[in-house]
């Protein structure tokens, strides 16, 4: 029995944390809010120097060929300071999708520059109806002589830090298919107003944009689901980092803030509230470690491990941030404190590529609780 990160992973955590401290912690997130987006590229190149961007990329294409567990300290520490950027989308979704479904040529063309930190890749998946797994895409990929041309509109597309490539879903004769599209081939793009201002989302329109098929046509949903196991494991680590920071800052505040002549942490309403945050944090951390382990080792309960972690942590992160605001009192309601940034981030992640309900249903299905498989609610909620 050894249920802990390795010594190397913990050392790597220390290095990342030091680098985040050098970046002045949430200062980068606040820079983005005030419109200075240059910091994103700075952070990416800093992480690249430390080898972070090479972690999940296989050795044949200039990566380190490491696994999901090695990403745990990275995402906990970047999540802790709400580092803005496409690290999750690139390293935990695009890379697994390319590694699993890309041709050798596709990998060779894209992954070395990801590993070196020069390139980031985003996902243009959602359409205006907001469905995660629609019956069909309105974005159409038509066959051309040299490949495909995509036409349609995608929304809720993360574009922070200027990704050079989008993995997108479009309809072909075979059904929903995945494509690689160059950012420079996007016809037009409109920025959206986002609750979490450390994010940048756009609605992008493709007009006969050249698209390169990724994987088998007609299998977009299955491929995305497979990729999302990697993504959600990493996302959980990021949220755990945020929760850890919330527990720390809330406990510290409760020790120094005096009301009624007492440090407020002496009052059980406050003390027990923070203890409950701590309980959730430890459960979240255990679930996220296990999810990463299950992904890395391709364990039989991989899907249940990831979905159950995600379902718990999405909710717990929101609760931790909300409770932290309440415990901070008036000052917690100002934009001066960071707590609100964590709340907005938690809400940003809540339904990102699936709701809590979706994760719970996926948990039940992967554990085969149902005699009739793939049963759905009266109304599809995913």
């Amino acid at each position, binding site marked *: 029995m050894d249920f802990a990160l390795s010594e190397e992973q913990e050392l790597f955590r220390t290095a990342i944390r030091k680098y985040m401290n050098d970046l002045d912690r949430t200062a980068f997130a606040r820079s983005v809010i005030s419109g200075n987006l240059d910091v994103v590229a700075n952070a990416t190149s800093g992480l690249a120097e430390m080898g972070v961007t090479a972690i999940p990329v296989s050795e044949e294409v200039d990566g380190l060929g490491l696994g999901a567990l090695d990403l745990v300290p990275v995402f906990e520490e970047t999540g802790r300071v709400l580092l803005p950027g496409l690290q999750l989308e690139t390293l935990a979704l695009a890379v697994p999708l390319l590694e699993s479904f890309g041709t050798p040529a596709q990998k060779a063309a894209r992954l070395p520059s990801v590993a070196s930190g020069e390139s980031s890749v985003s996902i243009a998946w959602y359409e205006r109806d907001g469905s995660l797994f629609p019956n069909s895409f309105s974005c159409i990929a038509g066959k051309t002589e040299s490949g495909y041309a995509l036409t349609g509109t995608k929304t809720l597309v993360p574009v922070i830090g200027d990704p050079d490539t989008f993995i997108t879903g479009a309809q072909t004769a075979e059904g929903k298919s995945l494509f690689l599209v160059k950012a420079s081939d996007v016809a037009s793009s409109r920025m959206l107003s986002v609750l979490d201002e450390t994010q940048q989302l756009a609605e992008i329109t493709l007009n006969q944009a050249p698209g390169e098929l990724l994987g088998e046509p007609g299998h977009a949903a299955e491929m995305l689901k497979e990729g999302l196991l990697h993504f959600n494991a990493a996302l959980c680590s990021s949220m755990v980092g945020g929760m850890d920071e919330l527990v720390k800052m809330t406990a510290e505040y409760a020790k120094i803030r005096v009301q009624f002549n007492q440090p407020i942490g002496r009052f059980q309403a406050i003390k027990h509230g923070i203890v409950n945050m701590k309980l959730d944090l430890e459960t979240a951390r255990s679930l996220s470690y296990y999810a990463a382990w299950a992904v890395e080792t391709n364990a039989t309960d991989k899907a249940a491990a990831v979905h159950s972690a995600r379902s718990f942590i999405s909710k717990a992160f929101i609760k931790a941030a909300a409770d932290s605001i309440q415990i901070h009192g008036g000052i917690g309601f100002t*934009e001066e404190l960071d707590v609100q940034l964590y709340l907005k981030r938690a*809400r940003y992640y809540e339904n990102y*590529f699936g709701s809590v309900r979706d994760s719970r249903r996926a948990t039940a299905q992967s554990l085969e609780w149902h005699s009739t498989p793939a049963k759905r609610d009266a109304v599809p909620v995913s």
Partner: protein
Amino acid sequence: MDFTFTKKEEKFRGELRGWLEVNLPKGWLQGDRKLPEDNEHYSKFLRDWQRTLYEGGWAAISWPKEYGGRDATLMEEIIYHQEMVRVQSPPLVNYIGIHMVAPTLMQMGTDAQKEEFIEKILTGEQVWSQGYSEPGAGSDLTALQTTAVKKDGKWVINGQKVWTSFAHLADRCFLLTKTSQSEKKHEGITVFLLDMDQEGVETRPIVQMDGHQEFNEVYLTDAIATDEDIVGEEGKGWAVLIALMLHERSGIAAQVFTLEQQFDSVIEMAKTVRVNGCLLIEDPFVEDGLADLYARINGAKLNYYRNITHTLKNGRPGPESSLDKLLVSELTKELFDFAMTIQGHAGVLMNDDSVFSAEMQGQYLASFGATIGGGTSEVQRNTIGERILGLPKDLGR
């Protein structure tokens, strides 16, 4: 049990409704409810609105007729709040003046104070703020640090206030200070009617997590007041505070009706917005959650009615009415939390990009203020536990 309104009450409602239709700002009833963004126009807009209310006789209906009010009954006050919430009327810029300062002055002000302030409060010529909270004394008003010291016949005031609503627009401040140190925490407090327009008063806005700036920090550096500015007696400010609180016959009517309206807008969203191709309300989890909120929000409103009934019968609110604020503020938070959850990932979009016209995102963020301002939920629970259930006093009390 009887939920009907009397003919007189219905007539009152009809009169107000008719007046509002004519006098609300242009386009307001049709949904154009944007307030000016810059401070100057914002201030002018709200002062104009109060002037309009005043001219229609609707600025301070519960005041005695002699002061320009209507001697409104409690039920008329409630109807007033219902109608104002219904049309989502612009905020009353001089809320503090009308609902707190003037009634207190009527009861315990000097003749000179009544003369000088009450009419200006009514017309909106003079806008008031409230100087209660301090950085070290949020929910604990007895921990005041702001001092007023008498020097050459004038009071010299130093300290800092926070969460001073409308201070950036205000002409005067209803200010709590310490004028003597006493063992007993409730002694030595003095209330001043401070002139904000002086060098010793500096106001800085507080930016809230929802981007709004409704509150301020106020820095007092050798600010000056006179004996004539004292309300009640020197050192007996606690009694003034108590008297002030007792004026609140109608409790949190506006919040109760607002919550009901907000719930209706969430229902409207659930009936019209599709996520994953289906109407939200057709998702059993959405239906279940909304039915639960319906029961509790309706329950909170009915509690309020029960407490109003008590006030009507006994002339003053019963102890149970102290539950209203806690329930309504917590439910407001829960309602918008739920509204956020059900919108799917598109729920992260704000403003014009939001999935529903009555944008839930800003209201969600704003809801966090409800359980903090005006006494945190934790302090409310202590108060209820001790005053209503007779449980032993907390440590530090």
